């Protein structure tokens, strides 16, 4: 994908690089093309619905920043804390990502001001545009920065998630960063290379139903202007789109294709996982491992009974925090990647595979995607369920100023969902393990001399991870 982004299009057609011409070769399963659903189509083609939703999320962000800066410092009574770290985070992990892949990116307000400056208009592109439109440096491409961003979040999360002022400043910072990057670089540079949310939404988007593909490749071949590529804010070329991790579902390609050849498909879950031909990138593998490691770390620090860890994570700048940071980074930078690489290497050796270890790691990291997705869903349930009653009460008094807009400002202690919550978490983790195992087996079948021996060490890794999550969440 990165190589394609470098080619300049002046009527050239990308058919080389050994990629299959038609995506239909590998899509025997059914897909539902949302762009052809009669009542839904106008909602996708018109800019207004998406624009209006984004305006609402932007207004929500403005209010969140206001609440964070001027509302009560008490987290449970501040809209900023509850709505960012409980309501939005839960919606992201339980709905947006598993069901919609990178769907949050399609309605995210953070790049919006920058986009307006870049395209010179609020709704559509206009004449006077403000941006240097530099190309993103080659060295910084890929998801390395996004993984680092997520690790940074992990180091400061104890304070960020509990202090309303800090949450507001982080949001302001993200807006500022996005605007700055939009004025400097072309397209949605922040979203593609920096945003940690975009990073993990992207890798998990490979497991989710939505995908943007072309309907008939032969039409694209004869089309000279390639308006889809020219209009894509993510710098993608729809004809060559093989996985959904880079596509932010902005639908500009759909709107600009003169032949109506772009499809917004809903595919069965995980139908794109398990094919060796997937470009197995090391940066995505690392991100997948960071997500797993972070799930374990967050579960240990936040939902575990070890108070000294929590105090260490909270006292930023102190020696205990330094130790915590060191441990967190060592775990995520050496232990998890090391163990996984070992598992991949053992699998390769046992089954007599001849692939380079680097490629094998990149390839096999697909197995970690369902595991990580479901681990994060389970973890989100474990910490958000006990606090769901605050979502309602904070709607009644968002700033902690003593309002009672909906009459429910002081909801009594919420019903005890702990029994259901534990069973739910266990079921979700089991589903993730089941799915990951099936992806591992698919990879075995797709490789040259595949045998179960290739997958066994990796399955052991996934099994141990699942056991660890069980013990941390319900043990």
């Amino acid at each position, binding site marked *: 994908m990165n190589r394609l982004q470098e080619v300049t299009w002046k009527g050239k057609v990308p058919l080389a690089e050994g990629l299959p011409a038609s995506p239909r070769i590998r899509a025997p399963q059914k897909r539902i093309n949302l762009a052809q659903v009669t009542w839904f189509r106008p909602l996708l083609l018109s800019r207004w619905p998406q624009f209006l939703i984004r305006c609402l999320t932007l207004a929500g962000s403005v209010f969140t920043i206001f609440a964070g800066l001027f509302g009560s410092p008490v987290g449970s009574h501040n809209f900023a804390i509850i709505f960012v770290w409980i309501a939005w985070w839960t919606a992201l992990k339980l709905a947006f990502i598993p069901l919609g892949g990178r769907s949050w990116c399609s309605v995210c307000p953070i790049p919006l001001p920058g986009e307006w400056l870049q395209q010179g208009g609020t709704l559509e592109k206009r004449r006077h545009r403000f941006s240097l439109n530099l190309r993103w440096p080659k060295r910084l491409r890929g998801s390395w920065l996004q993984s680092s961003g997520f690790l940074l979040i992990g180091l400061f999360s104890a304070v960020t998630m*509990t202090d309303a002022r800090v949450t507001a400043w982080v949001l302001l910072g993200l807006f500022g960063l996005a605007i700055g990057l939009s004025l400097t670089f072309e397209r949605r540079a922040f979203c593609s290379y920096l945003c940690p949310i975009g990073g993990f939404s992207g890798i998990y988007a490979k497991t989710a139903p939505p995908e943007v593909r072309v309907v008939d490749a032969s039409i694209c071949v004869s089309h000279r202007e390639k308006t889809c590529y020219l209009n894509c804010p993510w710098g993608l070329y729809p004809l060559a789109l093989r996985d959904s991790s880079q596509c932010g579902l902005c639908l500009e390609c759909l709107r600009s294709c003169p032949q109506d050849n772009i499809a917004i498909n809903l595919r069965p879950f995980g139908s794109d996982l*398990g094919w060796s031909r997937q470009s197995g990138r090391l940066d995505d593998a690392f991100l997948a491992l960071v997500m797993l490691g972070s799930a374990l770390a967050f579960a240990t620090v*936040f939902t575990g*009974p070890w108070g000294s860890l929590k105090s260490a994570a909270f006292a930023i700048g102190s020696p205990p925090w330094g130790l915590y940071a060191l441990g967190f980074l060592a775990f995520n930078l050496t232990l998890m990647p090391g163990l996984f690489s070992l598992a991949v290497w053992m699998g390769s050796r046992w089954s007599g595979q001849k692939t380079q270890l680097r490629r094998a790691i990149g390839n096999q990291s697909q197995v970690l995607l369902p595991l990580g997705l479901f681990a994060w869903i389970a973890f989100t349930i474990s910490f958000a369920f*006990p606090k769901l009653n605050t979502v309602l009460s904070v709607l009644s008094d968002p700033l902690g100023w003593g309002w009672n807009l909906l009459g429910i400002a002081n909801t009594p202690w919420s019903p*005890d969902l702990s029994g259901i919550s534990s069973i739910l978490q*266990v079921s979700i*983790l089991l589903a993730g393990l089941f799915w990951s195992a099936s992806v591992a087996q698919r990879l075995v079948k797709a490789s040259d001399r595949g045998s179960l021996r290739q997958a066994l060490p990796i399955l052991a890794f996934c099994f141990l991870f699942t056991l660890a999550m*069980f013990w941390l969440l319900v043990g």
Partner: protein
Amino acid sequence: MMHKSLCRGIPGWRWIVLASLALLITVLPIPANAKAPQARTFHVQASRFSYRPAVLTANPGDRVTIELKATDVVHGLAIDGYNLETTSDPGQTARLTFVADRRGSFRFRCTVTCGNMHPFMIGRLQVGRNDLLWRAAGLAILAAAAGVWKERK
């Protein structure tokens, strides 16, 4: 030999075996090593933001008393699954007495806002063996096997 061909005759025999095993693991009552219930007292100190001790272990049927002693600000303690709650001001130890009739692992949390990390002030009450954990581990083996078998064809 005959056994093998018999099994192969039933379509989807693997799934039937798996499902039966899963059912067994989920509902089979594991015999408890019955220890005589006794009275236990736990002296729990609460500070910002931890309980000491944070992990309390008891046997099913024990008469458990938790003496909550707040050491800096007002703290509370509520046990998930038992629906019990108490609050302690520094200088006023609170007592919670109950019979640990439910088995498993239950988290207890602070119920009085005591600062930033209050939502994460958590401890754990372990009553008997955590059956959920063992069953989950068994089911995990089955889940991995099922995932592999699903793609065998």
